[in-house]
């Protein structure tokens, strides 16, 4: 039972993170790769707040507020840098945050991490937490569904087709992209908060590259700007490497094999269905 609950929790966490990646990468064609950094940031903001004696719910709220403000750093980079430079800059933010977490050991516990992170009183059991995560995931999927129907969603879709066209219609692409980035950051932080409540331990390896590759693969595999595709993609990608658990491989190898599977899958997906994500070329 514990195994299935854990898998459901992982599904919820990766889906919540992937909603942001879906909005930015698949819908808006903004290659924001800082989701994993914000996942980790959200978790650390929660853990540090709890360490200073804050109630878990207040700590979660504070973590989300902090993540909102930190997301403006990415917005600044989005406005200042070119698309590809922005992509790699957000990717390397993961390394910067990891270095910061490892160095600032007075607050973050350094390489030893922070242990004994408390769950809220009403989510003490894993089953209660998983139900909360699933409800949160459904609500956020519904919010994405609504966003896709609003001006913001249509502008993001328009940006994928032609930024100049969207600008010509009087919508600021920078503002639209910035909003998508902020949403992505806040959602990733939310996933981080629920993730750390599940594990109850936090160190610099939390989230990391595996989470980034997983969320980007889910977003790109979903391809279409539709919530049901995102959900299907999340289920497929999250449960795909699970067959490894039933093989007689040592546990040290499973982590690397999982990354290998995700990265091969991402390459295959990018080389085969990438054209669905690109603006349609019309020949007259």
């Amino acid at each position, binding site marked *: 039972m514990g195994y299935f609950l854990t898998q459901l929790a992982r599904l919820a966490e990766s889906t919540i993170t992937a909603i942001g990646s879906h909005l930015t990468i698949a819908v808006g*064609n903004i*290659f924001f790769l800082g989701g994993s950094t914000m996942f980790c940031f959200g978790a650390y903001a929660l853990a540090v707040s709890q360490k200073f004696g804050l109630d878990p719910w207040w700590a979660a709220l504070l973590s989300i507020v902090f993540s909102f403000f930190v997301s403006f750093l990415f917005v600044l980079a989005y406005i*200042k*840098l070119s*698309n*590809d*430079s922005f*992509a*790699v*800059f957000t*990717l*390397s*933010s993961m*390394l*910067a945050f990891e*270095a*910061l977490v*490892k*160095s600032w050991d007075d607050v973050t516990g350094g390489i030893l991490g922070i242990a004994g992170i408390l769950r809220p009183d009403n989510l003490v059991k894993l089953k209660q937490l998983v139900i909360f995560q699933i409800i949160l995931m459904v609500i956020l999927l519904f919010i994405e569904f609504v966003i896709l129907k609003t001006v913001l969603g249509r502008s993001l879709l328009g940006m994928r087709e032609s930024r100049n066209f969207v600008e010509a219609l009087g919508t600021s692409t920078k503002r639209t992209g910035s909003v998508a980035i902020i949403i992505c950051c806040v959602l990733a932080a939310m996933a981080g908060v629920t993730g750390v409540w599940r594990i109850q331990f936090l160190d610099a390896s939390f989230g990391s*590259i595996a989470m980034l*590759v997983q969320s*980007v693969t889910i977003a*790109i595999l979903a391809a279409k700007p539709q919530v049901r595709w995102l959900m299907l993609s999340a289920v497929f990608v999250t449960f795909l490497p699970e067959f490894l658990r039933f093989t007689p491989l040592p546990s*040290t*190898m499973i982590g*690397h*094999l999982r*990354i*290998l599977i*995700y*990265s*091969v899958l*991402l*390459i295959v997906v*990018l*080389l085969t269905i*990438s054209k669905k*994500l*690109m603006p349609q070329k019309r020949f007259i």
Partner: protein
Amino acid sequence: MFFLQILLNSLVVGTQVVLLAVPLYLVYAASKIYHLALGATGISVAYALYFGLTSGWGWPITILFTLICAIVLGLLSFALLEKLAKKKEHLFGLLVSFSLGLCLEASMALMFGTDGKFFLSTPLPTINFSELYLTVPGAITLVVGIVLSILFLLLTTQTPWGREIKAVSENSYLLSSLSFNASLVRATVLVVASVIAGFVGIMTTFNSTLVPGAGFNIVVLAFIALLVGGVHSLKGTIVAAYLVVLIPELVVGLSSGSYSVSLSWKMVIVFIVAAILLTWKPNGLLERRERVE
């Protein structure tokens, strides 16, 4: 003397970054793709050397095997990135390159394990200049790095090959109509980049330990150098590579007393320096403003 030793060590690390930033620049110039897999490529080549040496093949066969591995990895990169470079889908190229890097890293971890490997069981040989010292791999890196930097600066700015690379990224169809083989130019660049990355991988791990994830840190530093120096300026990239290494080393090395900064903050300082330089000059240190008529 202490200051000079810091300067010398920073020069070696800076040259390692330059040596990876140069192929990163070349691939970007030829295909407009940030080839992030170069770090993992370099480390994979270093593992090939380690495999040859521990299998008792002897230096000539091991070096040949290592070179073949570097060329094969270059061709593999070409096979994966060519379609995307042709279609000008640069951001997907970046993601494919990143995933290829992860694949290589995970494969190395599965084959050789994640524990650190050493090429030599004895202490590294050093060269002493009065009270200053430099390891032999450090000295080789310094010399080769300076020679290659000057060589590629001349190649990209003064020779037809450099002009071809720029032309390929601008309009490969137009270049093909002039009977140039754009794919061949990109393949050559990727193979040369892999060989240089392999050299950097070997020299870096000779100086420290060989672990599968070592490539990612150095490729991020090289990328920061490329970004800070300006993606269209090799000269700027070289200057920036030394700056992003030297400033944190000096801050850490010269800080003292209650204001001392520990070594673990180095990477954080690199990002702060990069952020300041990018805010000050977003198009690169040596990038000139162009008037568009």
